[in-house]
């Protein structure tokens, strides 16, 4: 009985992430011919769920745990499990997709976040999937970046 409950809830709750992952892989794979199986080596596209995100200095920021995807299938924001010690005090925050840089060839730091930890430390927690996500966007590159702006995407 417990098992059925488990499976049932799993189906419900895994769907968005799986869709997002599939979307990500497809974006990276540049439209394969229909029906064929294309082999994509990990240095061209890699799985990102649960991967460590590092900042520009190579320091750990947190793990990428979910992706917000728009109606065209394009990723809008990444959800990062940020901060904490041994599971205490960590919090999920959403960061603008454009603030992330993916380097599949770099096995040590495949995902880099273009924000410092101090820029994202005060970001509100992303917890309710039904409400607007508070996404931290990168400071505009032209003027010398001041404070990070947090806003809902739409």
């Amino acid at each position: 009985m417990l098992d059925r409950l488990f499976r049932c809830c799993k189906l419900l709750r895994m769907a968005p992430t799986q869709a997002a992952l599939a979307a990500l892989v497809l974006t990276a794979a540049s439209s394969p011919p229909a029906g064929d199986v294309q082999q994509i080596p990990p240095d061209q596209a890699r799985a990102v769920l649960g991967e460590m995100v590092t900042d520009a200095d190579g320091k750990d920021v947190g793990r990428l745990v979910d992706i917000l995807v728009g109606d065209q299938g394009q990723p809008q924001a990444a959800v990062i499990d940020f901060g904490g010690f041994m599971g205490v005090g960590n919090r999920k925050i959403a960061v603008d997709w454009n603030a992330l840089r993916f380097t599949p060839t770099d096995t040590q730091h495949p995902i880099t976040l273009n924000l410092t930890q101090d820029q994202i430390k005060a970001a509100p927690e992303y917890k309710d999937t039904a409400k607007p996500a508070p996404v931290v966007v990168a400071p505009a590159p032209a003027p010398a970046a001041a404070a990070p702006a947090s806003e809902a995407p739409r």
Partner: protein
Amino acid sequence: MSHGETRPARNARALDLVNFFIADVQTGFGPFIAVYLTANKWTQGQIGLALTLGTVVALISQLPAGALVDSASNKRVAAGGAILGVMAAALLLASWPRQLPVSIAQTLHAFSSCVLTPAIAAISLHLVGHAALGERLGRNARFASLGNGLTAAVMGATGSYLSSRSVFILTAALCVPALFALASIGRGEHAREQTTKTPFDWPGLRELFSDRRLLIFGLCVVLFHLSNAAMLPLLGATVTMRAGSVANVIIAACIMVPQGVVALCSPAVGRYAASMGRRPVLLLGWGALPVRGLLLAVLPGAWLPVAAQAVSGVSGAVFGVMLPLLAADITRGTSHFNLCLGALGLAVSLGGGLSTAFGGWIADQAGTPMAFVALAVVGALATLVLWLLMPETNQDSATGDQSRTGSPTRPPPAAGSV
């Protein structure tokens, strides 16, 4: 091979080590599992379910596990089986982080923990008897918090510099010295009258669960954890917000400082509970809750809240010593010590489970400082209930006259209330 005088001392030291290593082992479970499963590509929904499974199994098994330990004629065997269960759970988690094995591991760990905690208390009671139990439980708490604090430090280091899997391998490895220490504890001198003859002794159960002292203390325990459990996670979130990249060091300090305080003052708590009576000590521990909550609400910056965590060490020490001590008081002369511990464990789980929901909700509605204030208010309420309703349970003649009356109408001066 010496015997006679040295035997109790040797048993006592072995029990110290058991407490130390078991605390080590339990540190890896808990919030860290979420980190580990995230690293293994689990979705947040799946992780939530796995954690909920552990919580639910723990809730369901408290009472049956307590009854099981009551019916075990050798509590050391029960404890050994439970340690093996925890070890198997850690190995499963480390080697096979998939849904079914993790579900099994969570179930196994939750049930084993529900057996292990009362079994250790029962072994302590067998070794020293009721009269010296307070002091013994103080030692237990001291070594457990030493184990907790040290392991949190070591595991924090291994978890961030090696892989998160190494935490569970280390956990499983630490079960081995725990088992060796357990095996070297001899049969206690106070072991008689502690085992149920039938697995289900209904009249005895009815008597236990209609004991007014258990019901009142159970309520105090629920309120204690309703106030206590959400404070550390909320504090961690606050520290992460305020400190950014050094937050993990501060949170580690927030976890280890109270452990240090518990290690320092638990033996004194046990001694005072024996000499002054249970009520003043209980009031001190419960009364520290609102103090801590208010300190957390007002202390600014990222480092200052660590000071408030020292206060939590006081309530932690009192709680760790007094919960099994009161269970022993309440069940004195019966064989339902472990069942009583199970019932109080249930109260802990209930209060703790409600606390995170309650604290999180207030934090969402009115901000984290208000959540700390609300938790402090619950702590004050818990202290008030304890002060007004809880009778003295110490039945040893050595206790002072004031605290022996057991009358709730004439409470002693509030020791620790705000």
